[in-house]
Every structure is written in C-alpha cells, then in structure tokens.
C-alpha cells in the first residue's frame, strides 16, 4: 500500500520551517516533512514539542520566520487562514471555532459565499450528502451549544470539507472525545483517506497512532526526530509503543527528581462529598471526598474537563459549592492553570505582581513600602531563577516558564500551609518543569500540596497519593508507590474504563 504511494507526489511538502516566538522560545526548528494523499499522517510529540505551532503555520494562523511550503510540488505562500482554505487546507482546532448560539447550518454557511436570500439551502443539501457519505449524524438546525463535543467536532469537519479541504489537520481530536466518539471519528477519517484526502493527526497518544496512522512524524523540542511509514515500526504493539515513546521523550530521561521521605502531619485540607456546578449550571463535581495532609502531595489526576477546574475554583473560593464540606487549615497558596491571566496581572510589573497576594504585609500606613517590595522581588527572582532584565518589566513580557517561576516565588515565600497547584508545568519546557517540580517537592516539607494535573509522568514523579478523577467523581485513590505498577489500570480509570470504586481517604 505504502510502496504505491511512494511514487505519488506529496500533496504538501514542508521545508525548513522555523518559528521563534517573541518570548524567545523556538517552537519549530528547521522542520521538513512530506504529506501524501490518501494517508493519515500522525504528528506525534509531547506537549510543547511544536506540533500545533507547525500546523498553525500551515493553516495560516501564524507566519513562519523561515521555510516554505510546496503544494503538489509548487511553492505557495500562506499568509492567512483564508489562503490556507483556498489551497484546500482545513484545520480542526482543539478549541472549536464555532459560534455557540448559532445553528449548525449557520456556522457552516459563515463566510461560504452562499446565496444571499437563502444562505442555508446549499448547506443543508451538502450536510445531508456528507451525512450519508461519512455516516455523520448532525441536525443542521440544532444550536451548537446544544451539541455534544463529538458532534461539534463533526461540524468542524464538515466546515472544512464543504470548503473543499483536501488536507485536513486535526489537533488532538480525541482529547475531548469518549472512546465511542473516537471510534466514530476514526471511521470518518478512514473514509476520507479512501477518497484520497490527506489527514494530519496531531496527538501524543501512542495507542491511536498505531491504530490509524499510515505515516508517523515524531517531533521533540521543535525538531523532527524521525519521519517514517508505520510499516517500518516494530512488530509487536508493546515494542512499537516503547520505540515511539523513546523517540518522543528522548533517550535520556531528564526528569528525574529526588523525593525525600516526609512523614505526613496534620490535615490541611478536608473535602467531603463536595458538589459544584459549572457556569452552565451543570454539576461537574459530583460528590468528591479527599484530604491533604502536611508533608504530602496529593494529586488529582484526570483528563481535562472532568470537573478539575470547578473543584479547584471551589477550593480556592472562586466558585460556590452546592453541597458538601470544605475545610481548610491555615494560609493557602494558589498556582492557577492560566498562569498569565489568573496568576499575574499581565500589565503590571514584576514587583507589583510579586505582592499581589500579600500587599498588606508591605504597607504599614497608607503607602506601600517600596524598598522592601523591591528587595523581596529581587530575592524572589534570584531564588527562583526568573529570567528578567529588571523588576520593572511587565509580567506579560516574560515567557511562560518565567511567569510560573515568579508565581512560585510569590506564593511559596508566604509559607502557605496548603498549596494548590493546577497544571503547574503545562506548556513549559523541560528546564522550567524541573524547576517547578523541585520547588513543589521543597515546599512539601512544610506544607500540604494539592496537585491537579493530567500529566501522568508528573503525578507519578511528585505525588504521594493519587486520586483519579473522572466525570466529577474520584474513581480511586492510590498510593504512589503502588501506582507505578498500575499505569495501564490508571489509564483506564482516567477514561472511565473502571468506575465506582470510590475509596474514602
């Protein structure tokens, strides 16, 4: 199958793409690869490997600093999403670009240049055709906000197809899907592939890659590690996974942190049968119980969107709860997931940001004690290795890793009894991740830490106990020592494979 394709001309050739973000992060470093028609091309890599950036460049959202694209062998310029659409490149983003109060048909018709007086006529007809062809069931007049995530994704796919996409890019499409929905998606992609369309599938899930990909490109730290047909890979599934994983992570396992033994002390946070609603009034935390003691890291592990956000917001007091008991003990520090907008005031300088949560300690009278504030900021910057030219630069001018270091410096310097860290290393480079981990482990000696994360490696490296959350409930609480041997089982728990084994902690 593959050999016949080798004679094919690639539909897209990516040559020497380099992208450096204003913060100095090189997201793509001289990337070259070929995409063939009639193939599913998996773009595999860890968070922050540069997969999404590369595809955002191909679909016209970002501009590359260097490099060119060839479509059917001819060089093309892609300056805007519109250009990309005209070249038959469609992208389904992780966050859907849909307008919630509008109908499916209206969303698809937007910008399509359909007839003025009856803009939906052609759209309705095409939706019907696609529905038959790809076995999609979408009600064209339903409002987007009433659809499930899987259905919304199908609307995005139709949006791309109706615009004549021959190259469909999907950014981590299964991250938000149930296993059932994922299978439906794979079926649709298979159909499209058989029609000669090229599909680029961004993922970090090895299982999926082996299931559907024809060709695999592995990215690490913005570079192509290897690009090869799936036939080249090891025979057994386990070996194949190991091979891919080592390509993704690299030979050297950099992230090895030493964990001292600390005897747990008093309970600093107690949550009993907690119920919380989200903004839409849906109960997303449905009876959660756990406790965090001083000297331990308790991890809430789960796929994003299973109630973690609402749980954390309830604990830190940003959101009310509708039932249950929440009892904290002592000063709490909070490291929010959205570090720039929630963790800092982006348009204020570092010194001002440094005292956001403790400014009262720095004003005896009406005025702030600037000398002490600057002193504290300089010390924090030095202790936590924040790379910044001056304490007067604005928080938004820092890179993600440095923002996180600043927040850690601020929160940890206040010696909280309880620290709540929400996805603390999401999107950070290895060095920053290591720093954050070390800081958390350090703090564990004097505080209880609630770590909310979807990153299994992080959770296994840091935590003492792990509560796996799925659909607003803690499925199971595991001791970290035993968890290391039950990774597959944990994966199942995170995705709803194992249920109703709530263990009180």
């Amino acid at each position, binding site marked *: 199958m593959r050999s016949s394709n080798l004679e094919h001309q690639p539909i897209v050739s990516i040559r020497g793409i380099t992208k450096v973000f204003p913060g100095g992060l090189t997201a793509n470093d001289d990337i070259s690869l070929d995409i063939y028609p009639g193939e599913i091309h998996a773009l595999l890599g860890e968070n922050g490997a540069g997969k999404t950036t590369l595809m955002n460049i191909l679909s016209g*959202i*970002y501009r590359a600093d260097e490099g060119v694209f060839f479509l059917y062998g001819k060089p093309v310029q892609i300056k*805007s*999403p*519109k250009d990309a*659409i005209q070249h038959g490149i469609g992208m389904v983003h992780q966050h859907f*670009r*849909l*307008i*919630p*109060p*509008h109908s499916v048909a*209206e969303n698809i*018709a*937007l*910008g*399509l*240049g*359909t*007839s*003025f*007086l*009856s*803009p939906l006529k052609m759209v309705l007809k095409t939706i019907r055709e696609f529905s038959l062809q790809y076995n999609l069931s979408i009600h064209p007049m339903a409002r987007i906000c009433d659809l499930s995530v899987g259905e919304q994704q199908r609307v995005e796919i139709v949006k791309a197809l109706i615009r004549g996409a021959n190259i469909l890019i999907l950014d981590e499409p299964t991250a938000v899907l149930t296993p059932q929905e994922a299978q439906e998606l794979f079926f649709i992609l298979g159909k499209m592939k058989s029609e000669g369309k090229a599909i680029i599938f961004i993922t970090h899930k090895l299982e999926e890659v082996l299931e559907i990909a024809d060709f695999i490109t592995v990215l690490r730290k913005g570079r192509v590690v290897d690009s090869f047909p799936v036939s080249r890979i090891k025979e057994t599934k386990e070996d194949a996974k190991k091979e891919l994983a080592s390509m993704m992570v690299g030979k050297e396992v950099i992230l090895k942190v030493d964990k001292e033994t600390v005897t747990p002390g008093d309970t600093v946070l107690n949550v009993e049968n907690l119920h919380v609603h989200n*903004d*839409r*009034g849906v109960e997303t935390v449905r009876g959660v119980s756990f406790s965090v003691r001083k000297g331990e890291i308790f991890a809430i592990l789960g796929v994003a969107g299973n109630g973690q956000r609402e749980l954390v917001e309830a604990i830190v007091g940003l959101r009310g709860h509708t039932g249950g008991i929440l009892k904290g003990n002592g000063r709490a520090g909070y490291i929010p997931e959205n570090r720039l907008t929630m963790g800092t005031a982006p348009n204020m300088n570092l010194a001002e940001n440094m005292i956001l949560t403790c400014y009262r300690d720095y004003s005896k009278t009406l005025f702030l004690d600037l000398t002490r504030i600057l002193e504290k900021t300089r010390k924090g910057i030095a202790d936590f290795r924040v790379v910044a030219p001056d304490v007067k630069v604005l928080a938004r001018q820092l890179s993600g890793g440095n923002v996180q270091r600043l927040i850690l410096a601020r929160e940890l310097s206040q010696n909280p009894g309880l620290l709540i860290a929400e996805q603390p290393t999401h999107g950070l480079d290895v060095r920053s991740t290591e720093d954050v981990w070390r800081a958390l482990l350090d703090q564990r000696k004097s505080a209880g830490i609630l770590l909310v994360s979807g990153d299994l490696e992080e959770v296994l490296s840091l935590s003492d106990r792990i509560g796996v959350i799925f659909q607003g409930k803690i499925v199971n609480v595991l001791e970290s020592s035993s968890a290391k041997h039950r990774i597959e089982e944990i994966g199942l728990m995170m995705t709803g494979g194992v249920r109703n084994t709530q263990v009180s902690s």
Partner: protein
Amino acid sequence: MQWETWVIETLRRALAYGSPLLLGTMGEIYSERSGILNLGVEGMMILGAFVGFFTAFVTGNPWLGFLMGALVGGAASLIHAFLSVTLRVIQVVSGLALTLFGLGLTGVLGRGWEGKPLRVSLPVFYIPYLKDIPILGPIVFVEQNVFVYIGIGLALILWYLLFKTSWGITIRSVGEDPATADALGINVSLVRYLCVVIGGLLAGMGGAYLSIIYRPSWTQGMTSGMGWIVIALTIFSFWHPIGALGGSYIFGSLFYLSFRLQPWVAPELLTIMPYLFTILAPLLLNLHKKMRRRMGAPAALGIPYSREGE
C-alpha cells in the same frame, strides 16, 4: 364603549410617538449585533433633528429633510466607527463623546432657529377599506404619517436581513465571535463599519422625525433623552427588530399617556416611566450570564477586535 375608543386612540398615537424610537432602536440593534456599542444615539438623533429641520425649512421639502437628517446621522456615526473599530478605543467613551458633540454642536448651530414653525408637512393617510377592519383598522390605518409605515416596513426588512440572509449570519457572527469570522475570511472591520453606519442613518432619521413630524420645529435638546431610551429598548427588544417594534410602541403609548392622564396623574410621574425603564434595562442585562445569552446579547459586544499578535 367610551374606554374602547380611548384605548384605540392611545394605541393609534403610540405608533406615531413610538416611530422615532423604533428607527433609532433598529439602528442600534444592527450596531450592537455586529459587536459595537454606540452610546452616541442621542447625539446622532439631535444632529438628524436639526439638519432635518433646517433642510426642510430652507428647501420646503420634508423628504429632503429626512434624507439629510439620515445622512448627517450616518456621517456622525463614522466618527464612532473610526474610533471604536479602527483605533479600538473604549466604546463607551467614544459613544458618550459623540452624544456630547451632537448636543453641543446643534446647540450652537440651532440658536437662530429656535421656535420657528415648520410649515411644510408630510402626507397623513386614511387607507380605504383597511381602515374599516375592526380595532386594527382605526389604530393602524387612520391618520398615520408615512414614516409610521416606513418604520414597520423597515422592521420587517431588517428582521429578514438579520436572521434569514447570508449578510445576517455574517453580522451576527461578527458580533458573537469576530476571531472565528475573521478566520473564515470575513472582513470584520468592514462589517462593523457598515453596521455602525446603518445605526447612524436610522438614528438620524429618527431625529428628523422629531423635528419634521412629531413637533414640526426646532428646539435645543429636543431629543430629551430619547437616544438613551433607544439604548434601553435595544436590550428590551432582545436585539431583535420585531421586538423593537413592540417595545417602541409600548414606550410610545407611555409618552402619549403622560399627556392624556395629566388631569389625574402627575405628568412627571408618567414622563419618568420610559427613563425608569432605561435604568432598569442594564440591570436586566446583568442579571445572569446565561440569561444574557438567551436574550440575544452579542458575546463580543463592546470588545474591540484585533488579530492575535497585532
């Protein structure tokens, strides 16, 4: 029997009193549906009122007065469009500036024209056959001026345009999520400019209605807060032209009643009714996020749009 004719008369007059509100509200609906809050309605209306009166007075042609009133409203709205779309300033500030500008400028220009009666007028209709329909006939088809019908016609057209055509999808999408519209090749700035100008044309027309039909003369500050009522009505109508039709006529009847009920009720009490509602409107808007969405409030209302990284 007596109260029946009384109700019919109130409703009949409500159409005439409500029409300038209707014109202004439909314009503001378009502006806000595209995501631009224009608090300059009062300013655009008073400019339309003065220029409309002036043109009609000088040329003796009330139609020309309406045209010029609308055009000056549209021109004034371009100031707001430029400030809020191109320069992305805070829309509340820019709108308020436009209101103050309109009130101030007409105060100066209109000094010599105060109290001069306009002798020309537009035709008033008694529509045969239709006027004999029970209840509806004497309300809608007796002694109404042509702009009452133009207002109703425009409401239907603008409703259809907004909810049934490709332009409508584009306008509403720009007001909900400009980034998504932009990604699909929509020129967000152009759509917003056009909608703001539609708002200006209609507000200017509403102003001309005041000085040519409603009270055929010029008085400084004669809009007396109608522009603000328009802002409130935009919310009450749930950003829907047909809702604007109903809301404007309810407010129109309140205006009329404040005259009619004078012997029994202190007129001030009734006069404040529309303004009272105007105060309540933002309250309604802030009740609940979910409620707000359901009512049709555009998600990107008041938020300047710029592309990522620009």
